[in-house]
């Protein structure tokens, strides 16, 4: 067990830090600390350009193997990259679903043809992805997929019909990966396929969902005889569940450390406010702030374990199993603290008619964290069943 980084790692840290410093300037300055949770709808165009700027510096997909256009960085340096990225206040990545989810899935399960077709656009920051997992009525019951994929022999294409929901960035994306039922008689996690679907086609409609913030990061996506090339199914029909589950593992990767740095930026804002308005002198508030601070530190320590442990037997370690529940709950508590620390003035909007302050956005947006990607309740079930071997619920 060793915490310090090698001199080589520290050199790498300087490299990325100075690149960011040089490039987060001029017109890009306004993007600093923007585009995070609750703020994803802001500056979409400018942030797309930022993706390409990153790509020019070879700072996209830094953890991907070199053969696929990445830097093939060791874990330590990936950690450093994400830390410095967040520390610099570099904007929320519109490319993160491609880089963090779609790409790794294609690398792991995709055909050579798919790799050639899709990976370069992700690496170049020119093609954005969104994910088509949740469905209305399915929610936490991920296996309850109703979207259908039927192979049309005459066209040689898959025909997709159904509806996905809670799809972030759908209106900005070029592609969507979609789980759909290839076997209409199948149930639960059997008979599913994993499709790569072009968004810009007549059969795909995106409808924004208005959220409690008054803004719309999330969308509904309707597939109405949408088409998908025969080559664009990942694995075989019926492999969908396996591919999707593999993908979920990537959500616990090194990017969690970047997420935490963003959390740290949020907490820093709250701390600054508390010092400014005197809440920092209130012993009860001090307890809450310290609690959030130390739990964030522990989140980081836990991620470090998770990453160091990943060289193991490949199964999800215990510290990884708790991760979603831990951070979602922490983030929710931070959101509450962010408004509470301001007392009554925390209720005052940025501007009429309903423009929220950054901390108000945070406060409201974090309520989705304990729901999407498996609610806290589902997480507890998973921990109990997979982590502790407790029995499943009886069938209804």
């Amino acid at each position: 067990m060793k915490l310090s980084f090698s001199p080589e790692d520290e050199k790498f840290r300087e490299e990325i830090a100075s690149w960011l410093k040089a490039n987060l300037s001029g017109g890009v300055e306004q993007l600093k600390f923007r585009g995070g949770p609750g703020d994803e709808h802001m500056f979409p165009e400018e942030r797309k350009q930022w993706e390409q700027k990153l790509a020019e510096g070879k700072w996209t997909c830094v953890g991907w193997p070199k053969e696929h256009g990445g830097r093939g960085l060791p874990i330590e340096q990936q950690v450093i990259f994400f830390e410095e990225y967040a520390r610099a206040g570099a904007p929320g990545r519109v490319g993160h679903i491609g880089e963090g989810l779609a790409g790794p899935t294609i690398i792991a399960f995709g055909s050579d043809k798919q790799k050639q077709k899709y990976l370069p656009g992700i690496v170049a920051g020119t093609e954005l992805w969104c994910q088509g997992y949740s469905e209305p009525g399915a929610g936490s019951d991920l296996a309850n997929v109703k979207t259908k994929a039927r192979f049309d022999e005459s066209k040689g294409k898959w025909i997709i019909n159904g509806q996905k929901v809670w799809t972030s960035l759908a209106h900005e994306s070029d592609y969507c990966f979609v789980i759909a039922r290839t076997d209409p008689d199948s149930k639960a996690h059997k008979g599913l396929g994993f499709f790569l679907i072009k968004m810009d086609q007549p059969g795909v409609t995106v409808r924004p969902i208005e959220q409690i913030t008054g803004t719309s990061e999330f969308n509904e996506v309707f597939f109405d005889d949408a088409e998908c090339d025969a080559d664009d199914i990942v694995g075989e029909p019926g492999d969908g569940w396996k591919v999707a589950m593999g993908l979920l593992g990537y959500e616990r990767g090194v990017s969690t450390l970047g997420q935490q740095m963003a959390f740290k930026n949020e907490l820093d804002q709250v701390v600054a406010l508390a010092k400014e308005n005197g809440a920092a002198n209130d012993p009860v508030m001090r307890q809450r702030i310290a609690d959030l601070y130390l739990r964030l530190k522990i989140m980081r320590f836990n991620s470090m374990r998770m990453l160091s442990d990943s060289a193991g037997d490949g199964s999800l370690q215990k510290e990884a199993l708790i991760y979603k529940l831990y951070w979602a709950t922490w983030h929710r508590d931070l959101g509450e603290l962010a408004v509470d620390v301001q007392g009554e003035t925390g209720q005052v909007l940025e501007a009429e008619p309903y423009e929220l302050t950054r901390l108000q956005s945070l406060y409201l947006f974090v309520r989705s964290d304990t729901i999407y990607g498996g609610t806290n309740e589902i997480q507890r079930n998973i921990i109990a069943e997979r982590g502790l071997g407790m029995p499943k619920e009886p069938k209804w």
Partner: protein
Amino acid sequence: MDFVFTEEQQMIRDTAESFLAEVSTSEAVRKAMVSSVGFDEALWQKICADMYWQAIHIPEEFGGMGLGYVELTAMMEQMGRYLLCAPFYSTVCLGVNTLLLAANEEQKAEYLAAICEGRLTATLAYCGVRGGRNAEDISATYSQQGDDFVLEGECGFVVDGLTAGLLLVAAREKGSSGESGISLFAVPADTAGVSRSNLPVLDQTRKMASVRLESVKLAQANLLGSAGQAWPVLDKVLDLATIALAAEQVGGSQQLLDSAVAYSKERVQFNRPIASFQAIKHKAADMMLRVEAGRSAVYYAACVADESLQGGELAGELKEAASIAKAYCSDAYFKNAGEAMQIHGGVGFTWEYDVHLYFKRAKASEHMLGNAAYHRERVAQVILD
């Protein structure tokens, strides 16, 4: 001892419930909350004319119904439940209470009659732009010039301050501090030097305003009570308003419970209604516990408020009863709001469903008139100091 609604009280409650269920629908609330005044004037006039709620605890001699605080809180509970957008809380719980406790007979006759007739709405402007519940938070000042008073300063978080016809303003004598030197003034909103602006807040269902006072000249007739002596009265008014607010919080908590339970019975996951999962059932059970305990706290506080207004033997308990109710109900409402949102899952995060309206109201109400920690500390002062 008979700690249950009388038949008449039950009827008042039931009437409020059925009336509000009809007029304060989700659609009506959403329409009112985006309007500039924040409520439907026609509905308010209907309430004043047909229901006569604005007059509920105004004594009969001033044209009111002469009912008690139990009746008032029973109605407030229903208003909180249906998120009624109307200048009721401001006019009755802040305005009428201030007038009842601080005004002389003439002032009462003038203002209370106007309120009874639906001609006047009122509100209380006491804290500065940073809010707060303590005497130190009063930042507007006054100075005496001959027989007149001149007010200066800015009041924040004035409920319905943009629309109220009568502003009851707490100000402190220039140079005073703490609990001394505080006076209450009846300031018609059109008085020269008064300017008002909307203060946009997260909870759209209760409008707030900032009120600027620039060389506002007032006569002796505008002074409520003795100059410089108003803090004890204002403190009591705030406690009474706190109890009404806690009742509203109970109503909101109840509504969140009801809607979450109803949704959980419909929503199917893993081939069963989620209401059948223990995780959901136990959340709902805890929600109900909070609602019922909060309701008990509010009923008790309402009885104490009644005695307080009538000089009964429990009058001395007002501060404690108000703080107990507000401390408990603030936490109960916000916790219930959070749990209701969680039970609703994704749809609870949409603008379309009503959960967020309550979620925002819960947090706003929590911070109004002192949050739970503030009131626990007040209780601690009673028992520990």
